[in-house]
């Protein structure tokens, strides 16, 4: 009879290098963003983010597609067909819905499942957790606020009579596209996370976020239209604030009834600051 013993217990100690705080923060960002977009989850979780992302790309793809198919029918100057400054207004509602769907998914499950306590007890500080979640909200939002315009810009370059000349003349538009997209993403990320941090129930967070954006916007519109010299009531149109800030970065003439660009930017800043304070308050605690 042959006797033998199995000595490999399929478990090894790891004594190699360990990564630091930045890697942990990136891990939190990466996994959170992927989960929010439905990656490694069922098709039901994927379908809405994917549909909304495609919808945000739709205007740019349609214009570029038509230009490719019917070059003679569309003016060479594609920028006049779909100006960069108008894009935020056209897909603003899509971005809003995208933010409403994605940002609660970043925080609510952690609180609902008790994973938040595990993270803080074992692996990551509260500050790192919040930073990771803000980045995780920003990355998907930049996908719908910056990338469609970047594609439109690239199309404009390709279809321009003199591509290099177009780039030289429109270098400032690259900065505007990045700044406008980042401004919108920051706003929707902070406000969405602040509202999501108030509850562990995703449905409540989505409802609260929608109510926060839409109700004041309707009220602001009614008041500004019905009260004499009430134009500044438009500033409480929280759904419109990031769009106005994005548009203010382009050299377009604003509606005479609108508050000044400075007022919109101040409103944008104030809402982001309040949202950041809410996050700090909700995740305050001993940082040791």
């Amino acid at each position, binding site marked *: 009879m042959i006797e033998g013993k199995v000595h490999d217990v399929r478990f090894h100690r*790891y004594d190699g290098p360990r*990564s630091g705080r930045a890697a*942990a923060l990136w891990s939190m960002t990466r996994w959170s963003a992927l989960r929010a977009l439905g990656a490694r989850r069922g098709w039901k979780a994927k379908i809405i983010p994917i549909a909304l992302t495609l919808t945000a790309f739709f205007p740019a793809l349609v214009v570029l597609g038509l230009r490719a198919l019917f070059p003679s029918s569309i003016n060479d100057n594609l920028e006049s067909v779909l100006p960069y400054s108008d894009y935020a207004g056209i897909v603003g509602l899509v971005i809003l819905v995208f933010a409403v769907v994605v940002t609660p998914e970043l925080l609510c499950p952690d609180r609902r499942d008790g994973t938040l306590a595990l993270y803080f007890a074992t692996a990551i500080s509260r500050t790192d957790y919040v930073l990771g979640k803000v980045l995780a909200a920003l990355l998907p939002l930049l996908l719908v606020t910056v990338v469609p315009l970047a594609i439109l810009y690239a199309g404009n370059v390709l279809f321009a009579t003199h591509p290099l000349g177009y780039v030289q003349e429109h270098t400032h538009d690259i900065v505007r596209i990045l700044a406008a997209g980042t401004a919108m993403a920051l706003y929707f990320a902070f406000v969405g996370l602040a509202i999501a941090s108030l509850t562990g129930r995703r449905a409540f967070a989505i409802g609260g976020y929608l109510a926060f954006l839409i109700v004041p916007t309707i009220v602001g519109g009614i008041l500004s239209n019905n009260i004499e010299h009430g134009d500044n009531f438009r500033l409480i149109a929280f759904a419109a604030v990031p769009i106005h800030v994005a548009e203010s970065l382009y050299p377009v003439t604003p509606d005479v009834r609108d508050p000044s660009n400075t007022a919109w930017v101040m409103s944008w800043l104030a809402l982001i600051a309040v949202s950041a304070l809410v996050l700090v308050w909700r995740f305050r605690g001993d940082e040791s």
Partner: protein
Amino acid sequence: MLRRDRRAGLPTVAAASPAYHGAVSATDQPLIEAAGLTKRFGGVTALNDVTADVTSPALGLLGANGAGKSTFMKAMLGLVKPDAGQVRVLGMDAAHQAREIRRSLGYMPENMCLPLGMTARDFIVHMGELRGLPRRIAVLRASEVLFQVGLEEERSRLIRTFSVGMRQRTNLAQAIVHSPSLVILDEPTNGLDPAGREEMLTLVRRLSAELEIAVIMSSHVLEDIVRTCDAVVVLREGRVAASRTLADATGASEREARVVISGDTAAFVARLQTAGLTASMRDDHVLVSGPDADTMLRAVRDAAAETDAGLHELRPAGPTLEDALIGDLT
């Protein structure tokens, strides 16, 4: 006994019987050193002057609900700041190096804390990365620890679909994925059915016995501690009521046995005496004395067979481990 070798920075396992409480030589570093640890929550004193040095590879924290077990564990992790005293973990001060301690240790909380919408594999990889493992290593180790806890086949299933026992095993896997020297388990058998509890206790014992991971486990169930640990600290109302190795906890003698039989007791006793043992009848049992446990066991077996007696109980005489620890608890 598992101690850390300062030169290599790695735990080493010695074959000696577990030592505890002050038996640490100058070159050894206790896993946990608590000195005068006191923590109050309002008018309630959760920990009251707790002092203990832990060098055992598997230590049980035993106590009734509210005895201070969880607070003691949270103090080790730096999650609660003591009002007085200090606790050092792997040589680090829990009050000032909590972040390093939390990344070094493994911790399995008492309550369910798993993301139900993630697969077991993804969650374990994520926890490994958060504790400093490079991504490739985290993926490899996730497979290893899920194999160790018996979830290799279910690694791609959502945690939502797991039974309570499988969730607890996933919870244990996240605690050891980063290869900690020490893992803290807070009531790991809570809520488990008998089969799940059996599996969990076997796993916990394997951590210190085979995988070289020191264990501190809390429980209010005496059997859990006896089956998985080498030493025990008994907490009562926030104080250390007793601290001892389990080998020392019993007062039972190896040279005396208590035997309960049915049948002709006098003939049984006479047969044992003929075999050279000292045997005497007591109220409800026979007390047997002999040179060693093996000799007594053989003689009792033969005497029972020859006198046609039914053997109902045979155990070392004197107070049992359970007797001793229950005495500490009450």
